[in-house]
């Protein structure tokens, strides 16, 4: 029986549950013995000119070994924005000098090295930083005016622009046109493990950097580049990583700084940020202001759709700058709309930089399209499920190219919606809703629907390729080296299953190694739901190739015809056809000569998982508080290798999506001061706010890889956010409400009801 498709429990967990994980801050590596601790001095002003940095008192503070200000940086050059087409004027200094400008609360001004970590906090406080404040640019609307320009040498806050305005007659043939400005708010990734890095230089002139990251190889390249080091000189290791959600893609400047500081000080250096530091310093996500316009006929046919995005990039533009191009690419979503227009403008603002966050550009497209469908349905008085059905791309098995230019591999959106509606008992829910509305209950029911398709395994800097090395050892164990970078996903288990499937070696005897650039110099890391379909496929391919290598060798040793040998899974080796147990094991072959394969798998194209969610909320219309009571989802990610792990990805994704819909938002006051920089203020979702999820199965294999697998890491988030938002709106729709921005807080819902009751449809 195949091990694939079975619920193999995670081989990682016994250690995590007994010893605990070993995060960067937990390392006891002897190379870090006697390490100094780095503490950064950060700007507490969002925008302004630095007039003084006085480190003299700090240099005298207990335990201080060194304090660095911008004057002490030698020939370190500011770090240019990560995209070649961006103006170099957006470069980020290592430390903002006197006369220079700080651009967000959290910008680096000085750094302190101390013997003990707690001494660093005292010493950092003793560094006097004076800033002459400038008006803060908060949000894209303020940025677009260019009244205050963050980078005078660039001359504008506009970082990039993609696409053209829609032609004037774009909606001319539509009976009904609805337009609305909506927000896809700024959120924090908030991984439980905050950022951390350590560095130690060896006698050989090489530096070893340990850091928490989603792709060791990419981070290594960046750090070497920023520090002007030969890449050979950098050895980067990612130990256990406690969550990333996209915000740990790419190195952060602090990581490289730690390596530089270790070199300057001649001693190893460690750094782990606090939660408050994390909530301002780590990349954040989403942050799009959108205008959606949808037009069509009263029979429910959508004829034209436009999505205009204003992307907040934060202070120093990073990868968030190009994410709206993914939003534009996916604008048509699951719909066969004849005309789709998408456009985006990106702005620098005095906030934390924006990067990838679970879905990265695609959730923003889905949220917009699903809001548009709901608004259109409400306008023509049609059931939102029916409007969707009428406009879905019909089921397809050959690639389909949408009006916004994406080519989907395979999909059946109608089937996904039908399944989820049936599982949810849609008709009964609507009947119950009608009864409550009829009675005028204080607790009203809302039913939200979303249908989505997303792009996974897209080129995120490493093409559509991934590497694997597989070696079987003479003792019968095996080692897999992968270029993916698991940080909770369970690759150690799944990659072992894939090798075990071909070789018959039990999963427990297969060790999976990752995140060490000396052992695995090339790899694409874990992001964009790419790992199984590329990294897993590479492991599968390695196992298949290893069988062939073994077959040739065994044929020689056994003096048999290679074609007469077949894999004998029960004995973990090869045997003569028809006579199991007569052959030779992988272990015996390995004892004879090293049995190892290195391979690269390249997918022809990305894959497009899809699904449909139904969210049910109960809203207390007197207070505006909405509580999620049911979440029913279809998340079709092609062939499932380990249902237990796939469900885990769905669970986490769904929960995170609910957080964005109902609770989470990074807020600044008008001076750019963060209002949500501790977990007392920033509410990520917790178990008490969630019902048990009802997961419905559906699997449409992709032809893009031999496993038939698509990505599942982000799907839950992409589907649940609009479903929950839609459910909240639906719960008060009978009171005249058409839209509530995310997060749909109690106050927002209550105000929307009041506005609607005043007569103006909101």
């Amino acid at each position, binding site marked *: 029986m195949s091990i694939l498709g079975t619920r193999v429990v995670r081989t990682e967990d016994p250690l995590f549950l007994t010893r605990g994980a070993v995060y960067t801050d937990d390392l006891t590596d002897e190379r870090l013995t006697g390490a100094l601790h780095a503490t950064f001095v950060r700007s507490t002003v969002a925008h302004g000119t630095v007039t003084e940095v006085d480190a003299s008192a700090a240099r005298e503070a207990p335990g201080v070994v060194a304090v660095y200000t911008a004057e002490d940086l030698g020939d370190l050059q500011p770090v240019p924005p990560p995209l070649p087409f961006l103006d170099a004027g957006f470069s980020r200094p290592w430390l903002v000098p006197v006369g220079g400008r700080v651009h967000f609360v959290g910008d680096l001004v000085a750094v302190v090295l101390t013997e003990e970590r707690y001494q660093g906090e005292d010493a950092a406080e003793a560094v006097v930083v004076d800033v002459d404040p400038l008006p803060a640019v908060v949000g894209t609307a303020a940025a677009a005016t260019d009244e205050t320009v963050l980078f005078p040498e660039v001359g504008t806050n506009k970082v990039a622009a993609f696409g053209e305005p829609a032609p004037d007659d774009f909606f001319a043939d539509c009976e009904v046109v609805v337009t609305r400005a909506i927000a896809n708010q700024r959120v924090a990734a908030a991984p439980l493990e905050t950022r951390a890095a350590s560095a130690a230089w060896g006698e050989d002139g090489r530096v070893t950097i340990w850091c928490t990251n989603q792709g060791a190889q990419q981070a290594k390249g960046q750090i070497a580049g920023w520090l002007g080091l030969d890449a050979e000189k950098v050895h980067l290791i990612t130990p256990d990583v406690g969550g990333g959600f996209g915000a740990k893609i790419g190195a952060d400047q602090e990581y490289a700084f730690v390596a530089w500081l270790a070199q300057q000080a001649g001693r190893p250096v460690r750094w782990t940020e606090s939660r408050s530091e994390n909530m301002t310093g780590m990349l954040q996500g989403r942050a799009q202001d959108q205008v959606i316009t949808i037009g069509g006929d009263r029979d429910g046919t959508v004829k034209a759709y436009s999505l205009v995005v204003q992307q907040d990039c934060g202070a120093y533009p990073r990868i968030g700058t190009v994410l709206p191009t993914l939003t534009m690419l996916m604008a048509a979503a699951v719909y066969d709309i004849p005309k789709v227009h998408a456009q985006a403008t990106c702005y620098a603002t005095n906030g934390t930089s924006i990067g990838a966050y679970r879905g990265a550009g695609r959730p923003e497209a889905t949220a917009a399209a699903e809001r548009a469908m709901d608004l259109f349905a409400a306008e023509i008085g049609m059931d939102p499920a029916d409007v969707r059905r009428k406009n879905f791309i019909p089921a397809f098995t050959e690639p389909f190219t949408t009006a916004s230019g994406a080519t989907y591999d395979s999909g059946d959106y109608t089937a996904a919606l039908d399944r989820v509606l049936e599982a949810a008992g849609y008709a009964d829910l609507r009947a119950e809703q009608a009864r409550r509305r009829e009675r005028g209950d204080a607790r009203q029911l809302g039913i939200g629907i979303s249908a989505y398709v997303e792009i996974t395994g897209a080129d995120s800097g490493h093409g559509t390729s991934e590497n694997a090395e597989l070696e079987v050892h003479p003792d019968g164990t095996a080692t897999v080296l992968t270029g993916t970078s698991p940080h909770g996903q369970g690759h150690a288990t799944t990659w072992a299953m894939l090798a075990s499937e071909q070789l018959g070696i039990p999963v427990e005897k297969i060790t999976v190694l990752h995140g060490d650039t000396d052992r695995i110099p090339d790899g694409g890391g874990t992001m964009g739901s790419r790992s199984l379909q590329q990294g897993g496929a590479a492991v599968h391919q390695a196992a298949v190739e290893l069988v062939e290598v073994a077959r040739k060798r065994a044929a020689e040793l056994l003096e048999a015809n290679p074609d007469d040998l077949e894999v004998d899974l029960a004995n973990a080796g090869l045997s003569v056809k028809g006579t199991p147990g007569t052959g030779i094991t992988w272990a015996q072959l390995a004892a004879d000569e090293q049995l190892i394969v290195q391979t690269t798998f390249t997918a022809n194209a990305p894959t497009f998982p899809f699904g449909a969610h139904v969210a049910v909320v109960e809203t207390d219309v007197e207070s505006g508080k909405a509580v999620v009571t049911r979440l029913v989802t279809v998340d079709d990610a092609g062939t499932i290798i380990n249902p237990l792990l796939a469900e885990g990805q769905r669970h986490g994704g769904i929960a995170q999506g609910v957080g964005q819909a109902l609770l989470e938002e990074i807020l600044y006051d008008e001076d750019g001061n963060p209002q949500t920089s501790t977990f007392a203020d920033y*509410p990520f979702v917790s178990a008490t706010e969630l019902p048990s999820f009802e997961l419905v199965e559906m699997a449409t294999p992709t032809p893009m890889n031999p496993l038939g697998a698509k990505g599942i890491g982000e799907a839950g988030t992409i589907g649940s956010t609009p479903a929950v938002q839609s459910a909240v709106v639906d719960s008060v729709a009978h009171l005249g409400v058409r839209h509530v921005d995310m997060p749909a807080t109690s106050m927002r819902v*209550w105000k929307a009801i009041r506005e609607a009751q005043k007569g103006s449809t909101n």
Partner: protein
Amino acid sequence: MIPSQFDYVRVSTVDEAVAALAEHGEDAKILAGGHSLLPIMKLRLAVPTVLIDISGVEELNYVRVDGDHVAIGAATRHHDLEKSEVAQAEVPLLPHVAARVGDPQVRHRGTLGGTVAHCDPASDLPTALLALGATVVVAGPGGRREIPITEFFLGFFETAMEEGELIVELRVPRTGAGGWGYEKFTRRENDWPIVAAAAVHLPDGSVGVALANMGGVVLKAAAVEAALAEGKSIEEAAELAAEGTSPSSDMHADVEYRSHLARLLTKRALKVAAGETEASTAESTAA
């Protein structure tokens, strides 16, 4: 997120605590459960140089009947109050409210004296104590004195305690089976209240009503109480809940919404207290 340096003194009697306070002066702070003090020390919003730990003072840890009152030691943990049979029988509002504070970890550390002394306008138990008309017993160099809770909360994080004093006991009337209601409105189940309302039928026949997070301190809903005393209906009285309050405006609620919540929650708490409706506290778990 690392506090600045401090000394730590552990005391085992009230006398020792009073002596330690006298010795170390205004730079000293009492440490009870630490669940309000330590977070603000980590953010360096408080920088005491000496902490006097009273969490091991056995004589401050009790819930007992004392005449027509229930007496509760200042170091009683929220969890112990929640589970106390005496409290459940004699003043059931308090254990109910204790069970709604934060999460289990907070309730196993936080103390009644700590939450009263901390004087946070959003805190749950002080709101209930105010509705109950509790008495705060403090001890200091000059011995013990009693302060009516209506005179205890002076302003934002400011109480009627004087230097060198600590809270030793809270005394509340025995309401027995008299009606009560507590409506706590939160973002998430474990959060602090955005607004909360406590209503309780007191032995003298009056109804005590108090509000959390409607001003710089927890507040009596005096207008509501007066209206009820005049025989107004619950609906009419509750409409007055925001009168005399000065709620702040923040990301969760602006003044208008807070005022609305005060009226709504007061009405609901009064109705529950009157036995007209069920409590709506378990909102987030409603199926």
